[in-house]
């Protein structure tokens, strides 16, 4: 711990303990506690490091007029200090613990009603209960025999935070202190005989601290909790449902983590209550009850308990269809694989679908729940959730082994398709579904969305591919429907992309369907709602991207949407959209659509020239960042797809890559002067690609900023002339494209991510062209040519900044040389190489790239930039200082009420 902090801490404690002084803001205590927790977790001892805390605790705990939040903080702090055995012993010596956690103390002071005291109490105890001594304290302490009693009461606290903390605390005690796994360990709750004792001491070697005494204590805790569970699990009236809910959550938590003896005892204790709950059938408890039963049923290694199996069967036969569906869904969700039950759950989940659509999903045999389910579905409010659960589980069902399924998976797909038809109001007269239910689902956006999600997932179901034609028809219908909600349209597009990408053979699709789809897409691009236009444009991009990603499927895109010739004009139109999101999506979609032709190095078209000039217009004029970011991304994509097949610079002038290279300069200069930092970062990413391109194959060029230039042997460089001349031309090329200017301007950007990225790239560049390790050889002829490559700096802003640094650096060096008595001529020569045309005013000047790279102190700069911007203000020291400052301001005698100085930590 920082000595400065330690020295401040006593004064801070004073402030906190003084109820008259106030705190800078309400998060201070939390931050302080976080700091202490971090310190403890790292293995430090709070009491040793800051002895003042002990005094603080013992002062505050007597002062019941303190702010409740400070008291709560104290409770938690005490727990934290007592988390180690040493701390615990020391606290007990000062007899602080008894008082701090004495319930009566807080109740008498009238503070127990404040939930923050209650939660502080729970969390304090919780942090403390990390060692056997704490358990002893927990079980017997002072005049209250058990802490367990109040803790159980807090289960039903008014505040849900308190109740939930109490719940987790119980689980913590039970699980943390449960005896380690051992073959014969079943001594809990029994009187220990001598033989058991030796046995335990052997098996508990890794936890030597657990004594026999602890065992008894633990057993007492377990008994108390179990009794409570037995007593309270079944609600006696409706108002107690909340309590049962809490306990069921606790139980499922325990059952999934508890080991053998505890687990068996739990099961034994609650078996009766669970059975009662199952028979009573409270709807609100169905899901948590199912969780408990499934946890009990599945986690055992041997055969599941017959009793539990029976309960599970009963849950899947309860008389309320809505609960039944939820119970069945829980079986599937838990990944339960007991053939009989899973198959039954599947039947239940398919029942609503089968009723509405009239598809024979469940075979000819009638179902006992059929009638009650029909009644349920006739009620609008109950119908939709049931159908949605059924739909959500259907994709999982289709992927199950055949012996779980009452029908082939394809039939389920058919049923969902016909449900989609019902939802849109297009029911064929041959549909044998329940017409009384139709009125509840027709036009329901929620059901439509669920069904479309299911449909999307079905694309991977076995045998589903044969439905492609039908699926496309329905999706086209949905896309065409004027009543479709934008989210429904979005999901339809998703499904469409998924299905077309899975089904490679689209030859069975009728021409009419294709024409319809093209017409619908054309219409949707003109939709009034921007969300719809956005989804449509996005779809066009995805379709082009997905379908082209595998080369042989190129004709799919062609076949389904008429290829680029059909979609490109639509996307070009969308570049003019008034909504920036749509423009941005259109730009990305265009990139995906054109990527293929770029990849193949296709010839330049008039259209591409038009698109590029429009994009440059957007980059320079668009008021929204999204569109401008997308433009840079467009060029990045373009660059990537060109360079993957041939280096762009070497292409012929008629190919599209020459257009790209011609535009790069404008992109870089526009992008680097953008107001949006993300645009600038993207611009730097493009610059990075250009660097990669220029230096690919060069030794010493480490892609990314993590390269280790030390690997490069200086002699190797000097000896290789050819490599050097390449380097010169590559570097001059980068200067010409403006890459160097972009990097340098980025370095001085006020947005940290931009500066960081630029700095990393500049370091990479420096390590490639003029590693610092070579500085000694700088003046040799070998490096002279590289050093002569220069770039222009503007006479303002970052240019001026750089010139200032370079000049300073040079002066330093000149002084150094003078001191060492080096030749004057040398420094003069240097001067000429460094700054070719000397001018002081606002004019731009040329400077040597290497000179600049070396002078900038990039490594120090990287260190600064890597730190987060609030690293100063976020330190514990600053926190402590804030507390002191705030209290000083408040304590000032002249301060009138209302004249408070408000200090915000951030």
């Amino acid at each position, binding site marked *: 711990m920082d000595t400065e902090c330690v020295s401040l801490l006593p004064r801070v404690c004073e402030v906190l303990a003084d109820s008259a002084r106030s705190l800078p803001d309400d998060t201070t205590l939390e931050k302080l506690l976080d700091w202490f927790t971090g310190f403890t977790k790292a293995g430090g001892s709070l009491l040793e490091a800051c002895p003042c805390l002990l005094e603080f605790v013992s002062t505050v705990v007597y002062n019941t007029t303190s702010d409740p939040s400070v008291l709560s903080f104290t409770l938690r702090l005490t727990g934290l200090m007592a988390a180690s055995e040493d701390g615990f012993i020391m606290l007990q010596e000062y007899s602080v613990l008894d008082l701090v956690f004495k319930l009566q103390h807080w109740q008498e002071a009238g503070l127990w009603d404040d939930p923050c005291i209650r939660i502080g109490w729970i969390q304090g105890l919780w942090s403390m209960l990390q060692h056997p001594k704490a358990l002893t304290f927990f079980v017997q302490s002072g005049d209250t025999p058990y802490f367990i009693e109040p803790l159980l009461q807090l289960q039903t606290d008014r505040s849900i935070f308190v109740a939930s903390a109490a719940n987790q605390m119980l689980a913590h005690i039970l699980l943390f202190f449960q005896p380690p796994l051992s073959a014969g360990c079943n001594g809990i709750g029994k009187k220990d005989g001598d033989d058991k004792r030796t046995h335990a001491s052997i098996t508990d070697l890794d936890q030597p601290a657990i004594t026999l005494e602890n065992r008894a204590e633990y057993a007492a805790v377990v008994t108390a909790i179990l009794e409570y569970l037995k007593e309270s699990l079944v609600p006696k009236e409706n108002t107690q449902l909340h309590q049962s809910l809490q306990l069921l959550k606790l139980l499922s938590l325990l059952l999934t983590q508890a080991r053998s003896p505890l687990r068996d005892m739990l099961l034994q204790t609650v078996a009766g209550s669970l059975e009662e709950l199952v028979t009573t059938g409270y709807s609100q408890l169905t899901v948590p009850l199912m969780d408990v039963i499934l946890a009990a049923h599945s986690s055992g290694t041997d055969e599941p308990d017959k009793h539990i199996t029976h309960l599970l069967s009963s849950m899947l036969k309860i008389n309320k269809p809505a609960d039944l569906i939820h119970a069945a869904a829980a079986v599937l969700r838990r990944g339960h694989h007991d053939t009989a039950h899973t198959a039954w759950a599947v039947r239940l989940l398919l029942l609503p679908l089968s009723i509405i659509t009239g598809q024979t999903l469940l075979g000819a045999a009638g179902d006992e729940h059929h009638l009650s389910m029909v009644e349920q579905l006739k009620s609008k409010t109950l119908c939709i959730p049931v159908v949605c659960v059924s739909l959500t589980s259907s994709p999982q069902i289709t992927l199950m082994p055949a012996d779980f399924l009452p029908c082939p998976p394809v039939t389920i797909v058919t049923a969902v398709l016909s449900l989609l038809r019902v939802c849109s109001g297009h029911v064929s007269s041959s549909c044998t579904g329940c017409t009384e239910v139709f009125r509840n689902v027709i036009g329901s956006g929620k059901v439509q969305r669920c069904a479309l999600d299911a449909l999307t997932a079905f694309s991977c179901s076995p045998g589903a591919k044969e439905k492609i034609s039908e699926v496309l028809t329905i999706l086209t219908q949905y896309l065409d429907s004027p009543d479709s909600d934008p989210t429904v349209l979005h999901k339809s597009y998703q499904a469409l992309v998924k299905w077309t990408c899975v089904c490679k053979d689209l030859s069975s699709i009728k021409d009419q369907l294709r024409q319809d789809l093209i017409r619908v897409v054309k219409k949707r*691009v*003109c939709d009034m709602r921007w969300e719809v236009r956005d989804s449509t444009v996005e779809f066009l991009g995805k379709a082009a991207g997905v379908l082209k990603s595998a080369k042989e499927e190129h004709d799919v895109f062609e076949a389904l949407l008429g290829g680029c010739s059909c979609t490109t004009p639509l996307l070009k139109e969308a570049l003019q959209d008034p909504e920036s999101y749509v423009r941005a999506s259109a730009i990305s979609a265009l990139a995906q659509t054109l990527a293929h032709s770029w990849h193949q190095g296709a010839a330049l078209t008039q259209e591409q020239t038009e698109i590029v000039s429009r994009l440059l217009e957007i980059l320079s004029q668009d008021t929204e960042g999204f569109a401008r970011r997308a433009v840079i991304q467009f060029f990045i994509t373009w660059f990537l797809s060109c360079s993957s097949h041939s280096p762009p610079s070497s292409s012929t002038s008629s190919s599209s890559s020459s257009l790209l290279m011609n535009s790069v300069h404008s992109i870089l200069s526009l992008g680097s002067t953008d107001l949006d930092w993300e645009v600038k970062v993207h611009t730097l990413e493009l610059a990075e690609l250009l660097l990669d391109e220029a230096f690919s194959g060069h030794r010493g060029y480490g892609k990314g900023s993590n390269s280790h230039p030390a690997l490069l042997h200086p002699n190797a460089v000097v000896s290789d002339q050819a490599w050097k001349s390449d380097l010169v031309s590559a570097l001059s090329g980068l200067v010409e494209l403006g890459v160097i200017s972009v990097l340098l301007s980025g370095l001085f950007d006020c947005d940290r991510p931009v500066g960081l990225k630029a700095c990393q790239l500049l370091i990479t560049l420096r390590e490639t062209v003029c590693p610092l390790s070579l500085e000694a050889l700088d003046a040799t002829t070998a490096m002279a040519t590289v050093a002569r490559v220069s770039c222009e700096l503007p006479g303002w802003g970052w240019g001026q900044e750089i010139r200032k640094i370079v000049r300073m650096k040079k002066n330093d060096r000149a002084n150094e040389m003078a001191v060492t008595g080096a030749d004057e001529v040398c420094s003069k020569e240097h001067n000429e190489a460094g700054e070719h045309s000397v001018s002081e005013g606002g004019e731009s000047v040329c400077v040597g790239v290497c000179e600049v790279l070396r002078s900038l102190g990039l490594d120090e700069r990287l260190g600064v930039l890597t730190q987060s911007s609030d690293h100063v203000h976020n330190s514990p020291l600053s926190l402590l200082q804030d507390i002191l400052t705030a209290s000083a301001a408040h304590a000032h005698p002249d301060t009138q009420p209302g004249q408070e100085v408000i200090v915000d930590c951030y």
Partner: protein
Amino acid sequence: MKLYCLSGHPTLPCNVLKFKSTTIMLDCGLDTTSVLNFLPLPLVHSSRLSKLPGWVSKDGTVNLEKRELLDLSTIDVILISNYHCMMALPYITEHTGFTGTVYATEPTLQIGRLLMEELVNFMERVPKAQSATCWKNKEIQRILPGPLKDAVDVWTWKRCYSMQEVNSALSKVQLVGYSQKVELFGAVQVSPLSSGYSLGSSNWIIQSHHEKVSYVSGSSLLTTHPQPMDQSSLKNSDVLILTGLTQMPTANPDGMLGEFCSNLAMTIRAGGNVLVPCYSSGVIYDLLECLYQFIESASLGTTPFYFISPVANSSLEFSQIFAEWLCHNKQTKVYLPEPPFPHAELIQTNKLKHYPSIHGDFSSEFRQPCVVFTGHPSLRFGDVVHFMELWGKSSLNTIIFTEPDFSYLDALAPYQPLAMKCVYCPIDTRLNFHQVSKLLKEIQPLHVVCPEQYTQPPVSQSHRSDLMLELQPPPMPYRRCSVLNLPFRRRYERVYILPELANSLVPSEIKPGISVATVSAVLHSKDNKHTLQSVPKPPPVPPSKKRKRVMEEPPVVLVPKPLLSGAVPLEAFLATLQKHGITEVKVEETADGHILHLQAEDTLIQLEEDGTHIVCDNNEPLRTTLRDLVLRFLQKL
């Protein structure tokens, strides 16, 4: 109370309500679908149309759904709910002996006049050389081709009315404002309520002191331009006559509007023209407003919009001046001051231009591609006929149907084969079944009367159980020519009492808070008002003997017997009997009260809630005693 249903058309209703001695006609819509049986009337000679094979019509064309169910001259008043539902007015008020009054709001009258004027103009500017009526003869009709042969009631088809008839009919209109109460002969009060469907559209409440009938026709809950629908005033109706629900229950207006815009943009971008056959008032205002917002986003800024109708100018301007009939946010614009509808700005910036017809200025200004709004939606007459001929051959052009009144396929029939794209986006903002069932749940009428079409799903979509009215008790369906006895009895009537008579009453309290008095008076009824007046004192007996006979005639005013009230308490009565020496009483409890058996006297006393009987044979003194004992417990008035 009876309802005569003269029209079976759900959105063009014509019903007559007989209620408390008044005869009230509710709307008189004109079903013009019969024009689809005729060839279009081209403005410019069309060789194609004139060469079409088939039967040449010479008649003006309207179908009038009136039957001799009742004599139109007996109608006292006609209540108009919106301008679409008054188009048959001249047929009813002219040449029928009608002498009553028509009630309508001002926008309804003014826009209704525009629509009638437009109709007459469309008809009259293509005069027919001759007219033929013989074909209406059943014998001849039977040999006619195609659908004409099967047309029903062709003899009710009449010539279109003239401007003169229109003016005369409209002169009988009395203007009313929302919630204004109009007394009809003192018997009933009628009052229009905003219905939210179109400018000045109304629902009507027809009520007497104790009965309330609501008439709902063409209402909308959407927030378009008119004032929102007044729902709360419809509460507590005994009978609600429900007509004018949407004709397109499956087409959501919002979706259709979106469809309209995207198809329009798609066509314009591809370099085609868009033709929108529509009425010159109503939805067009919303279409223009929607397009106003859409123009920029779809980069249609330079595309001209033309609105061609003989009444285009008046329609656009009228809509701007009826501020008090507009929805709230349009009203507030007026005070800014700003025109409530954005079409004013479209006109100012020359994006929207309007012309009375394709002749004249329009031809010199006409620029393509463009969007044209023009009538008539049936495509049988009006300027639209010309544009169909002009643009029908190119697949670049699109016709977008927005009016739901005509089947678009029938409307297009004479123009086939057609290369032009057709888009059907019927925009009907009237209540749909979902909205109406919510509304009825809210206002809880005792009985609902509606066209029979609303009580079952549409024939073509028999599974759509959501497209019908399901009510408890079930609605009373009507069809054309039905006469319904409305299912409630009039049980009360308000009667006034003159002050001096009231003064003479002596009320006595029979229960705390309830006092009763007997009244003897003469009931005087005049103008459906009933008044109780004091009984005139018999004139002094005249000396003349001649008048003696007359004297015997006036009612003999007897002093009425006092009325008794109260109940006989059993215990107290038994005690009283005992005091009078009657001790042997056997009490038997019955459903209505008690039977007392006086065994010694062999007498029965039946004490029931609404009567007391003493059965006592041949023992008058005992009976009298018992009677007096009973009377002791009762109050006299």
